[in-house]
């Protein structure tokens, strides 16, 4: 009786009950299982631009005066002065892992699609983008929450959790530093295999971006030969530089988003350092010659006498937010590696190539160095000048260069009459993991 009644009522409105009940409740909802869906997940620019800012808050290219510092919230105050007991804002962790989850969803779904006729190229590209994202995000996290890579202390120090599936029931635990970097390299290599040379959009990674990310990773590992090889591969695909002589320094921000130099566009999850409060470090500022166009294009002194940074590659007018990859970084990496490998002339040629586009044409002179260490010193100085306020780079550089006595830095903050010092290789170069995460997972906290 019941069954026939059920059948009857269904018949009155639709052909079959199952079909009637299969309608999805919300039209905008999709179960990600088509290539279009996966591409849409990857093309989410907001989520691609959730890169962490903690390293930059702790970096030395800027300072806050007492009044500005007093006006900040306690997390930024603590991170600025490297207080030992506070982790950075939770989003540094959460938003990165959110994107890693997305990448894992895409990888799992794309894996199920292998073998769809005629779509192999698209499936490969989508998988390549997801591998890139995962490796790139792991690399960002490693610079904050994993101790610096040291070839000598393998397997013991703990790196970051490596989540490789979208199953949220998997328990998070920390891998070793070696495993962390091995995973980053493996993901980025997989991306290199799958991605096209250049992507149609700078918000999507191509091979050039994957090579660049590998180059940055090897640089952080101080494997200069590999860093050189990948930088070179990247530049073989993309080596365009902006000629700063052609830019207008009177604009609010002379740089357009997605400009010719950008290889892969990404941003911080927020603007960590507003240019009306974060003042450029005076030592750094004094390094720019008057003929150095970057001095005018990057910096501006506002009505209150604050000299802040306005040269953001994402086009922001309020402060730095670009945290992606651009030609200048990779060119400087190649220059540094070449010099370290003893190929001084080739390295200095790269440096000159960059500076020709940075120094006023009438004042530019080619540099040349007899000694490798002089060339290296100069390249590192130019790296500071070129990549100041560029997301994710200075903190990574500080961590790796501290491993070389010659280039180590002792950072000092002066706040309300007190000095806060971050010694080279201090444990605080590795941030605390957010308390919520440690509390829920029971994973080991970074030592203090």
């Amino acid at each position: 009786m019941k069954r026939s009644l059920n059948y009857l009522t269904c018949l009155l409105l639709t052909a079959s009950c199952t079909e009637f009940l299969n309608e999805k409740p919300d039209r905008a909802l999709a179960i990600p299982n088509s290539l279009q869906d996966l591409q849409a997940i990857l093309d989410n620019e907001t989520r691609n631009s959730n890169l962490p800012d903690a390293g930059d808050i702790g970096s030395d290219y800027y300072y806050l005066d007492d009044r500005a510092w007093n006006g900040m919230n306690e997390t930024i105050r603590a991170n600025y002065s490297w207080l030992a007991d506070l982790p950075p804002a939770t989003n540094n962790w959460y938003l990165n892992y959110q994107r890693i989850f997305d990448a894992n969803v895409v990888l799992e779904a794309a894996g199920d699609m292998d073998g769809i006729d005629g779509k192999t190229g698209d499936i490969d590209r989508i998988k390549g983008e997801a591998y890139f994202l995962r490796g790139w995000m792991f690399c960002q996290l490693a610079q904050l929450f994993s101790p610096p890579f040291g070839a000598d202390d393998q397997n013991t120090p703990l790196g970051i959790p490596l989540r490789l599936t979208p199953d949220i029931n998997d328990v998070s635990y920390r891998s070793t530093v070696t495993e962390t970097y091995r995973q980053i390299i493996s993901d980025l290599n997989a991306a290199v295999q799958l991605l096209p040379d250049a992507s149609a959009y700078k918000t999507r990674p191509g091979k050039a971006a994957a090579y660049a990310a590998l180059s940055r990773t090897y640089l952080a590992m101080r494997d200069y030969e590999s860093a050189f090889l990948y930088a070179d591969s990247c530049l073989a695909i993309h080596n365009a530089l902006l000629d700063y002589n052609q830019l207008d320094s009177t604009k609010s921000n002379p740089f357009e988003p997605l400009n010719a130099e950008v290889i892969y566009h990404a941003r911080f999850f927020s603007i960590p350092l507003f240019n009306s409060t974060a003042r450029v470090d005076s030592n750094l500022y004094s390094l720019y010659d008057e003929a150095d166009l970057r001095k005018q294009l990057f910096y501006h002194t506002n009505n209150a006498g604050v000299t802040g940074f306005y040269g953001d590659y994402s086009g922001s007018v309020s402060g730095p937010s670009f945290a992606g990859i651009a030609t200048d970084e990779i060119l400087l990496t190649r220059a540094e590696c070449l010099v370290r490998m003893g190929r001084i002339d080739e390295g200095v040629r790269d440096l000159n190539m960059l500076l020709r586009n940075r120094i006023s044409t009438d004042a530019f002179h080619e540099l040349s160095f007899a000694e490798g260490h002089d060339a290296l010193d100069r390249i590192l100085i130019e790296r500071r000048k070129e990549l100041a306020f560029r997301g994710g780079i200075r903190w990574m550089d500080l961590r790796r260069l501290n491993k070389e006595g010659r280039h180590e830095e002792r950072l000092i903050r002066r706040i309300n009459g007190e000095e806060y010092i971050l010694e080279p290789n201090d444990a605080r170069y590795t941030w605390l993991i957010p308390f919520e995460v440690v509390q829920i997972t029971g994973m080991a906290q970074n030592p203090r």
Partner: protein
Amino acid sequence: MNTNLLLGILLCIHATISFAQHPIQGKVSDNNGTPLENAIIRHDRTIVAYTDKDGLFKFNAPAADSLLLTVSHLGYITVDKTLHFPYEQYHVVQLTPLANELQEVNVYTGYQILPKERATGSFESVDNKLLNRQIGTDVISRLNGLVPGVLFNHRQGDQSQWFNIRGISTLTASRDVSAPLIVLDNFPYEGNIDNINPNDVENITFLKDAAATSIWGARAGNGVVVITTKKGGYNTPMTVSLNANVTLREKPDLFYRPQMSPAEFIDMESFLFEQGAFDANLGNSRTWPVITPVVEILEKERSGEWSAQQARTAIDALRANDIRRDYSNYLYRNAINQQYALSLKGGAGKANYLISAGFDKNLENLRRNSFDRINLRSQLGIKPTDRIELQAGLAYTINSSADNNSGEIRLGANRGIYPYARLVDENGLPAIIEQDYRKGYVDTAGGGRLLDWYYRPLEEVRLADNTTGMRDLLFNLGANLRLARSVNAEVKYMYEYQTTNQQHIRSEEGYFTRNLINRFTQLDGDNIEYAVPFGAVLDHSMSNLSAQSLRTQFNANIDWWGPHKLNGLVGGEIRSTMIRGATGRQYGYDSDLMTAQAVDYINRYPVYDGLASNALIPNMDAFSGRDIRFVSLYANAAYAYNDKYIVSGSARRDASNLFGVETNNKWKPLWSLGAKWRIDKEPFFKSPMLSRLSLGITYGYSGNVNNSIPAVTTMIYSNSLSQLARLSYGTIQNPPNPLLRWENVSQLNVRAEIASRNNRITTNLEYYRKKSEDLIGAVNADLTTGFMTSSTNSASLLTHGMDISIATQNTVGKLSWNTNAFISYNTNTVSEYLYDGYSIASYLASDNTIVPAVGYPVNSVFSYRWAGLDPANGDPRGYLDGQPSTDYLRLTQPEGLEDLVFHGSAIPEVFGGLRNDFSYKNFSLSVNITYRLGYFFRAESIQYSTLLRPNTEWGHGDFAKRWKAPGDERYTQVPSMRYPVDARRDNFYAYSEILVNKGDHIRLQDINLSYHMPGTPVGNLKFTLYARNLGLIWKASDIGLDPDFPSMAPQRTIAFGVSSNF
């Protein structure tokens, strides 16, 4: 609605009826011959006379073949008397006191109408008399404080339509998931509940226990409310009723919530200025953030432009301003709501009808905001043969609302108003208030070549044109076919179409449009380029809902089988709701010519003066669609033996597209069983005191559809393209959750009904025990998963409670005095929770989100233990390792629940009402007192971290009571002001024990005073005066706030109504 016209119709009808009059008189007495005063004499249901103190009555009757007189008196059995023409002149009527029989009450389940006598389940009825005791625009808010077990959530305001039946049964706080199911006549109502005109409502039945609700299956876990509308009756003469009322609602008291005084705020800004907190904003010559007037003055003083004296004078002049006064004077008014309703109904042998119309016009407290509603309804019943009855109904509602005044002014997207602002300048013109940019920048920007860039809030209210119109058509058809002596089949169909259109015209004169045009203007030498065209910006949105339901049902009713009575039904139902929406925007809109202009959404345009990076012109086009489908089967039966033993059972199965295939397949039926024993009908029951005693018990399951979380990974496509690459993109919404099931609620209900001889005292006692299982709980997730929270079926909740109601007739006769009282007790405990990975501090996070702690009520109030203020510096202190401490980092990360103070529930565990109804001659008075006991609330206080920052928010009034110097800790518990701020210190204080207060209170809910005037030329008139929100009678806490309304006191309202029946 034209009232003159109505009056005209009314007079015409009356004239026809009273064509020829014949005097009739008589006497009413009880069966001892004692005269009864105030007995009511009705002719064709219309009151024509009352008896005087000698029991005598007199009226004029029209000539007719026969005349039906009804004589009634409270506490006596009503007598019908038919007179034949020519009438006898004198009539003696004897009334018998009510002894054993109460008036028969029916309960409406939405599937059947049952005599309450034979129902085993727990039902509460509100008839239209009780419903009309309160005056208001909507149906739901009239029920506040009347029904045992029903608690309104006052946090949503005193006109809240958010209520729970017998406490909460789910952990999901959202109203969609936690609200009871609302059924209009026979089907769940999908439209806007405000569409229903209370004058059309005959009865509202609350279904509370499993036996009552399980017939509604997977959506009944939170209880069910069945609203039944009025219908005509067969063989009844036409009655006309008219109702008109007007309600006056006072302006809200904006000074109720304690806030810093403007002078304190000015001093605080001066302090922040000295600290350099505004330096970054003052120096910002790129985006020119807003600077408040006091800071501008201080900056002028610092730069030497003004002398110290000049600055002080200018600042002191601002101290006397208070924006709350201006808000009250210029943005608010006393609200006036008017309501008119007319209905005609009646019927002959084969047909009945009802036609009604209603009109509501509300002028809201906020000026230029209003709500209008027109209701038209007709309902027809036809019996073409003895075997067939057909029903058809049509209801059409038109409502429109204007939302032109938000009541709040902000300085930009993330900046609140400063308290010394003014809405009107010294010349009485709308004042300029800073908005988005610094005023000095706007003064000179563009050198006169841009549109006026000032923001005048009062002008904005005048220019606003934001209206929403809704049309709702509800159509129902029903056919009932008698198949055999006691079996019939029925088919019911309902179709609803509701369309909502919002149109927000942002005039070119308004700030929004001027600002948008200016931002996209480029001045290039003499050349001016506009990317956004001149003219208004029109934002529009449309939403259509269409719902269809079809039900086929077989009913059996066997009452001819000796002592056996059997009553059962079985049926199937299919329902489909489709919602489609679209929003969009037009630029350069001209409402006279009805034209708009195209804009370029593709290219990025420079923003004026580099105020922001190059931007796209906002494209607001968006579309949405939802589909909800249900297929259900159900059956229900009750068997009674000798009217003494009654057993009942019901079962239902649902399938829906919301659950996903897995859940539909795994489904087990929801069922209930019930039994009732009429002890008073047993031969051994011989009580001189009691006329009725019955016991009932029910048990069963109902479900709760929580469609907030799908079972599979889903993504949602953005309705716009990505910012830079201009690609379509999506966002993953949730992780996969293949184990998701709907929540289910089992309930045991035990009930006793007791009535004294003469029914002078009737009581209903109910005890219930609910177990809600598979509750979906959102827990703080391991952030490494990429989710802040994860939701899954993870918790169980045990609820138990009692509903006791008692009705007494204290006096009868000249002065009648009846009392209706109820008390409800409801408490719950989280009995199971499958997750242990969450931080203890999340128990404190908010009183509105639910973080379950096993062994505690769902809505528990916890706090940090308070160790007083530090005598040295006024820091708030808690306890760490038994010692007072100011280590806020550790204090706000407690390790276990034992580190917190548990106060109790945030929801009243005991609540009830006491209603006394008096009537004397033609006057009646009804006073309702309500109370809520056994709960706690957190008082607000000063939060320095939102106050002491460049984007300062107007702080709490406790600022004045803060600790300032050693020794103050003896008088105050408000922490000292500290700069730099520490949000953890604020957080510790905000969630400390010291701010938790008892919520217990007794409230004078409302008073209704009525005067009856029978037999006037315009029918039986009733005049009503109704007052509401009259204040608290008692409260447990000593802070000066109403515990249920801590941020805005409920405004007093007074209403005057007149109604007529003839």
